[in-house]
């Protein structure tokens, strides 16, 4: 009797860092289009979940990718995942647009801050974090997503998930603690592999 091996197609992560490098080194427009195709709808989904109007979100996404094109050479692969760099850039463009919409005066030409990630720890990249998050129970991942991606307050999460406020807080704390510890664990593996 043979046991059928579970048939799960491996999901390859989107090679964002390679595309970014191609943009920086070779001004590769095809790579640029790939990045846009993958990230633009996701960034728009994230922006609109934050109660932004669609046309404003479209505009922020356009500006973000224009800056990706212009600033790709500032991305340092060893210091942060490409997705983190693009995400942070979009976040900064969002604030710049809000500043303009609300007519907040900035004296000497404030512009969009390009994430430099200078304080980032080389080994702690988002790829290992994504692996770390996979090890967490689904209920903890859900709550992390509510707080860190949808930006819900603890109270909003409690209402959405029908949980007592205290449970939300302790579950978040636990999830973060675990993510941090798992990151430490992956860091070890990385060091062992490299030595």
């Amino acid at each position, binding site marked *: 009797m043979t046991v059928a091996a579970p048939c799960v197609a491996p999901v390859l992560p989107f090679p964002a860092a390679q595309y970014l490098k191609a943009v920086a080194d070779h001004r590769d427009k095809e790579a640029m289009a790939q990045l846009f195709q993958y990230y633009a*709808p*996701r960034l*728009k989904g994230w922006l609109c979940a934050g109660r932004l109007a669609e046309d404003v979100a479209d505009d922020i996404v356009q500006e973000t990718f224009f800056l990706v094109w212009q600033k790709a050479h500032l991305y340092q692969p060893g210091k942060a995942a490409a997705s983190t760099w693009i995400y942070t850039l*979009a976040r900064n463009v969002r604030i710049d647009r*809000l500043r303009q919409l609300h007519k907040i005066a900035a004296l000497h030409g404030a512009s969009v801050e390009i994430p430099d990630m200078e304080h980032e720890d080389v080994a702690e990249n988002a790829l290992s974090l994504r692996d770390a998050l996979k090890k967490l129970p689904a209920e903890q991942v859900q709550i992390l997503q509510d707080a*860190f*991606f949808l*930006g819900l*307050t603890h109270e909003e999460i409690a209402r959405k998930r029908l949980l007592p406020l205290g449970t939300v807080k302790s579950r978040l704390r636990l999830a973060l603690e675990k993510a941090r510890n798992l990151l430490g664990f992956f860091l070890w593996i990385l060091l062992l592999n490299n030595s």
Partner: protein
Amino acid sequence: VDTAAEQLLTHHAAGRLDVAGSLLAAAYREINPAAAATGGLYDKVSSSFLDNAPEMPLSAGAVDRLMQRLDTASDVPLANETALPHEHPSPYPRSIHPYLPRQRDGSLRWRSLGALRVCTLFKQNDGSTFSLVAAAPGKPLPQHTHRGEEFALVLSGTLQDERGNFTRGDLVYADAHIDHKPMAIGEHECVCLVLTRDKLKFTGRYGGVLNFLQGSR
């Protein structure tokens, strides 16, 4: 990094803050190493969800518009691009430099408000105020409660209230539940970057006058 500070950093990472909130969080991460580390981790947590984000189609022809724009963009300053020189040394976080109101001679525009000096960066439509507030040591600030909430990031000097002493890099939070009497202590003025959501309500002896002054500024 306490609960209020943690929430600020979380909302910053999630990209859900308004302009003043984002600048405050950026300044906090800039001058407090623990906040920088926490914020860095939070950015990674937030961005790790991007792959599974709900996808929303862009308006028709979005990618073509981008490509056209890239074609017309000047491609010149690529390598060796360096950040603009910053004012050094400055006690003020780099993030807020573009928002500091200056006089002709380049000095900051302060005005007096009782025992305080205030330099307002900007006010938002929702009534939030983003300012530098300087307090002389030894003079207790008027006791106040909050109708909204207040974040004070200490930039220099020492601030003391019922909860303890706070120095550069500390973020002090107060809301409607806290009736606090902060005071600068030590030898130097205490300067804070303060985000006030809705107006403070002064409750002490001169409260009425101060509420009036605040409303009239």
